[in-house]
């Protein structure tokens, strides 16, 4: 059952990414050139919607948060730095 949910959620996820144009090389790399802000708009909208929704629902006692990604400053930052290079090269 959980797998069916994953499949449905995944397809909405992929659909949203495709419709935002994030499956295109030029969208990603033009974000880093600041000629097309779609990536940032998309990410930040998703973040804001989900933040409000999740924290509101937790306040009402509807959800418990899963294990959050661990914070280790050097690792997160170094990973991000390498990731950015790959992102600008491939347009992932």
């Amino acid at each position, binding site marked *: 059952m*959980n797998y069916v*949910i*994953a*499949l449905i*959620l*995944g*397809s*909405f*996820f*992929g*659909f*949203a*990414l*495709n*419709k*935002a144009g994030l*499956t295109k090389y*030029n969208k990603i*790399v033009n974000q*880093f*050139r600041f000629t097309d802000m779609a*990536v940032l*708009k*998309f*990410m*930040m*909208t*998703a*973040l804001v*919607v*989900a*933040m409000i*929704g999740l924290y509101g*629902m937790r306040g009402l006692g509807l959800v*418990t948060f*899963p294990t*959050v*990604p*661990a*914070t*280790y*400053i050097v*690792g*997160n*930052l*170094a*990973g*991000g*730095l*390498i*990731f*950015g*290079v*790959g*992102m*600008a*090269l*491939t*347009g*992932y």
Partner: protein
Amino acid sequence: MKTILKYIGKEIWSPYVAGILLGLVGIVAVWVSNSLLGASGAFENLAGLIGKAVAPAAFDNMYFNFIMPPGITWGVILLVGVFFGGLIGAATSKTLKWGKKDSANSDAQWKRIFGPQTWKRWVLGFFGAILLEYAAGIAGGCTSGLAISGGMLLVPAAFLFIAGMFGSGILTALIIYRKQY
């Protein structure tokens, strides 16, 4: 209703609308499955599964035993869904091209910068993807798994990762594009 259908058929949506959709998907994922959306972890689960079968000794380490246990996880199924979701998205906007020439390398901007050869794109994609997956392994997630899913739970790691990603991304774009930046 007709306007909604017409909007679905558009190739590029407003990023705000698509962002709201992704935000809702993120909420449902936590609410119903108590999981976070992530892509890079699933590749590691699969790699672990293959690795354990082919070379068990090389994969018998901390990382693949405890941090990223191999198997068909929730994330792997999610990734299958992402594939079909992207397929549906392309089909509705009629940009789906099955096996047409140049469909693997149809980005005009990419061709202008790197040249028209398709093999170049495959090579760059391959090595760039190694960088991406390796970096995601270090940081503990990728754009979706750490930056978006972690960000919506206000995890500090997510914002460190976004800062690093943009810092080096801008620098790389500067180097590639030089005067055209």
